[in-house]
């Protein structure tokens, strides 16, 4: 499974008041990652590849997957990535703001063989910059490298591992040059990766790069934040109370809402 390269960007070196931080891995830091992008660019396939290391040809539009979870180890920390799928709500431009509002990271996907999908991706990035958490880490991902691998000469590294692309490389042409997308991503300070959910190329990299770029100390402190002197600043755990008479304190079903791994 995926493990982030631990060679750099250590979040443990956070400085100043670090005198007492323990080296033992704490409980996983939960990160909400949202997928965005036009319908049929391969958002779900990308996550299925990352989480289950599998690929379904001719996958139906997303049904039934709310989100998938994958742990990523990063130096001393374990990140639990909750990767939210759009559940098809993007199809008629009906994705709810709730979906991406408090995400710590967004993976915005386009299809390198469909020019319109990059425009849609740019619109999503604009929307994220307007509505989402200001510290959100955004990765721009050009998917479906496998479709163009055979006639893509400028991308040398991608021709290496394409044995499974043999028969059905259907010769679609690339409509978005790597450099065009990269320049756009660089300009806005986004991560940029080209991937193939089908072959797996670049997929783990997307999520590990996202993980490395997250400001973990900021996320951890946001999770702990509560105003001193205010009794009720904390989050509430919502349980089902027993029915019937007064004074039942059943609570047999407990669902925490504050980021614990249930």
């Amino acid at each position: 499974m995926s493990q982030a390269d631990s060679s750099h960007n250590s979040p443990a070196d956070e400085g100043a008041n670090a005198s007492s931080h323990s080296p033992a891995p704490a409980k996983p830091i939960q990160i909400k990652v949202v997928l965005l992008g036009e319908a049929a660019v391969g958002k779900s396939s990308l996550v299925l590849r990352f989480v289950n290391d599998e690929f379904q040809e001719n996958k139906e539009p997303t049904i039934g997957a709310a989100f998938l979870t994958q742990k990523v180890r990063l130096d001393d920390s374990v990140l639990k990535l909750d990767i939210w799928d759009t559940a098809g709500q993007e199809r008629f431009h009906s994705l709810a703001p709730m979906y991406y509002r408090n995400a710590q990271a967004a993976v915005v996907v386009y299809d390198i063989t469909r020019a319109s999908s990059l425009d849609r991706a740019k619109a999503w990035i604009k929307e994220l910059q307007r509505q989402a958490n200001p510290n959100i880490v955004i990765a721009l991902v050009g998917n479906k490298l496998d479709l163009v691998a055979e006639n893509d000469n400028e991308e040398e590294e991608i021709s290496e591992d394409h044995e499974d692309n043999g028969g059905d490389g259907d010769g679609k042409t690339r409509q978005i040059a790597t450099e065009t997308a990269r320049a756009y991503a660089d300009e806005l300070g986004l991560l940029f990766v080209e991937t193939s959910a089908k072959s797996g190329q670049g997929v783990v990299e997307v999520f590990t790069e996202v993980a490395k770029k997250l400001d973990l100390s900021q996320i951890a402190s946001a999770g702990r934040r509560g105003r001193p002197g205010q009794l009720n600043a904390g989050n509430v755990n919502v349980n089902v109370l027993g029915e019937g008479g007064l004074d039942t304190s059943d609570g047999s079903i407990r669902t925490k809402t504050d980021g614990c791994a249930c």
Partner: protein
Amino acid sequence: MDEEYDVIILGTGLTECMLSGILAVEGKKVLHIDRNDFYGGECASVNLTQMYQRFRNGEQPPSELGRDRDYLIDLIPKFLMTGEGLIKVLVYTDVVRYLEFRAIATSMVYNGSKIYKVPSTPNEALTSSLVGVFQKVKARSFFEFLQSWQGTEAHHQGVSMDGDTMDKVYEHFGLNEDTQEFIGHSMALHLDEGYKKRPARETCKRVIMYANSAARAMADGRNSPYIYPQYGLGDLPQAFARLSAVYAGTFMLATPVDEVVRDEAGAFVGVKSGGKIARARQVIGDPSYFTDSVRVTDRVIRAICILRAPIPKTEADSAQIILPQRQTGRKHDIYVTCLSSQQKICPAGFYVASISTIAETQGDPKEEIAAGIKLLGPIDQIFVTVSNVYEPVTDGTKDNVFISRSYDATSHFETVYDDVKDLYHRITGKDLVLQKRPKMEEDAAAAAT
């Protein structure tokens, strides 16, 4: 669009979205349409631009109010109580997973032109100045009576829950007007005195729900039985819409409904939009999509106020204040709520208060809520609306057109939940039985294999 569905849902208010989610989970093929380009319909949470569009003819909001996007103002102010039915639906469907709840800091009641903290439990009530010295023993025996009632039996300690009115029960326990006001308005959260003439069961159940919520709050170290979803109530319909979508519900916002098509007998056929028709056996929608099949039951006054300081005497980031009708010389209670950046519904340094009540005159609505306005201190902006509360004229079982009720003036979601249960029964012929859904990861794992 040009397709056949089991059910088409019009409007993305909370009632519609809950039904959308519940029916989709049960395997129904759902098409969900809203003419607006945002979720929530009448119960959306809106930003400043949307507020000014709605109430100030699209005027530009003053820049001193801060960033537009930092505002999520509830058009219908309500709080949740942990004991209420909606919470059960949220937990059983695991939709709670999408939301983060915060405690409301304080709950107050207006009495003799001052505000007091509402005692949160029966025990606290018995030591509070709101229940008179000579009433304490009597009130205690009323609470003990409720404590020993299982919530279902028809008869309990000589009281007929369905045969005796609440008036009769008050009389039975010798509770005076002050105590009645406390029980009926601060705990059972009735808006007027009509409940006294109705069977006791309703009020007893409400008091129990309140007391259970309060007991849970105490156990969790919260000061009020009320909770609130961060980023506004508008996230509730969005969360249920997501549930529906996860179960293959199709969502189309910004889609005008040109016509609800019926056959010669008046039964539902389909919905026309932009020259296309979507067909289904049944349609569910809010009253705005069926203006000729609904009638007005009440008019609700709501005033949304932007403040730069907490409500005086509450000094809290969030509060509810009940002004019982007897205290203001009205027939209906006035509710005041206040929220702040703690709930992530406005920028730091601002507070959004709402005042609501059922209109009793055709006159100036501000006058009717004057007692509430007076409590707020200096008001930066005030937006006053009077809106009709609609109910359907038919139950839909004949024409397959199922219309929800408008959001009423109550301060919680019990009447919304009642409407959802009622609609579900009319739509499916079955009682709504909530079954615990597997957790979402389990779902996802199942979908992935």
